[in-house]
């Protein structure tokens, strides 16, 4: 009898434990996005310039174009064959599915925004999540009379030699200012006006 009671207790404890484990497993929510690249690997990936897709490449390769600007901008004007995924919605399940599908099909996805900088955030995020088929289109978009103008842009260009500019400005400032030729004083011709000498009134008659 004593033996039986002991078993009873053990079985109740066992059942409870199993239930607990099952509930824990069911309630566990798997995070929908996980980084698959370590931070060092991500740094390495952005340090080389494999992700750059120039305007000339648009004619050469097979790819899927994605416009990362807002929907309003997209409707206003976009590149041919581009689909619209706004940056804040890039991690939505529907869009994740799209990127996953593209990755499985080994198709390159090219992101573009009003400037390459705009496409950088979604690009880096997707890259860190393990989508290694993403590239950035290096163009600037501008509007002129409601027409979309696409211009190539270069990244991280060292445009100006500032040191040279400063040195030159100092040189210019310290150099003796050129003596501006003084305008020759126009010699005024003075024509002496003869004063009518009043002759002393002499006599009369």
């Amino acid at each position, binding site marked *: 009898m004593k033996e039986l009671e002991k078993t009873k207790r053990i079985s109740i404890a066992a059942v409870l434990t199993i239930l607990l484990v099952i509930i824990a497993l069911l309630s566990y929510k798997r995070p929908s996005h996980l980084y698959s690249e370590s931070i060092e690997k991500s740094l390495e990936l952005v340090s080389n310039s494999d992700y750059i897709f120039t305007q000339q490449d648009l004619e050469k390769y097979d790819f899927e174009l994605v416009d990362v600007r807002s929907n309003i901008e997209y409707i206003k004007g976009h590149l041919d064959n581009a689909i619209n995924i706004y940056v*804040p919605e890039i991690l939505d399940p529907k869009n994740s599915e799209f990127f996953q599908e593209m990755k499985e099909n080994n198709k390159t996805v090219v992101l573009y925004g009003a400037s390459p*900088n705009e496409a950088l955030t979604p690009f880096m*995020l997707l890259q*860190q999540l393990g989508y290694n088929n993403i590239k950035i289109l290096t163009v600037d978009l501008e509007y002129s009379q409601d027409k979309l103008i696409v211009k190539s842009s270069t990244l991280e260009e060292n445009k*100006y030699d500032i040191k040279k500019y400063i040195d030159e400005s100092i040189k210019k400032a310290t150099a003796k*200012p050129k003596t501006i030729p003084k305008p020759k004083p126009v010699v005024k011709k003075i024509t002496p006006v003869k004063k009518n000498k009043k002759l002393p009134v002499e006599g009369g008659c």
Partner: protein
Amino acid sequence: MVNRKLVKFLSFRYIILSIVFIVLAGGLVVLPKFEKQEGIEPEKLLADAISPERYISTDVLADRMINQDPTLLLIDLRTAEDYNKYALPNAINIPIENIFSKDYEGYLNQVEYDVVLYSNDNFKADQAWILCKRLDYKNLRVLKGGINKWYSTIINPEKPTELMASKAFDLYSFRKAASMYFGVAYPQKETEKRVVAKAKPKVTTTAKVVVPKKKKKKMPVEGGC
């Protein structure tokens, strides 16, 4: 009969229980192996990265540098070659490849300073910012437009045209003064002219000098009939 079967079954009860636990323990192996996640959640990183608050404009930065803000720490992400050519005063050169190396980690992962990252434009600086943000580094800012914008706004500001608002002129005079602080010299003449123009008092009170006029004495006409 039934009772005997039950007794036989119960004699294995410990073994059965232990098998159940072993199976459950085995289940742990099947559970998806989660890599140790480095950094904040991707959703949070995205939310932080799309807000423009990370940018600092060249004017604000110049103002803080001129006021010698002690909490400011400038980090140049360009190559050493570019850095040696020209860098902002007191900036530290950390080429972007080295931002996570042990030597430089202390500069980025801290809370005392306001770190401003810059490069030629803000593309590289943004990359570094996103990576550092993932590791939840605090107080990081990005110089909007980078060195190229710095040149076109502070070092060589564009003169406003006459039709522009007075604000543009104020901004221009600030930028010009800032550029002088950062080493640009302007020809003396121009500055002198301005000083003179300012110093010249416009109202000159001229004391009236009263010059007494000599009355002509009419001379008596001499002679005559």
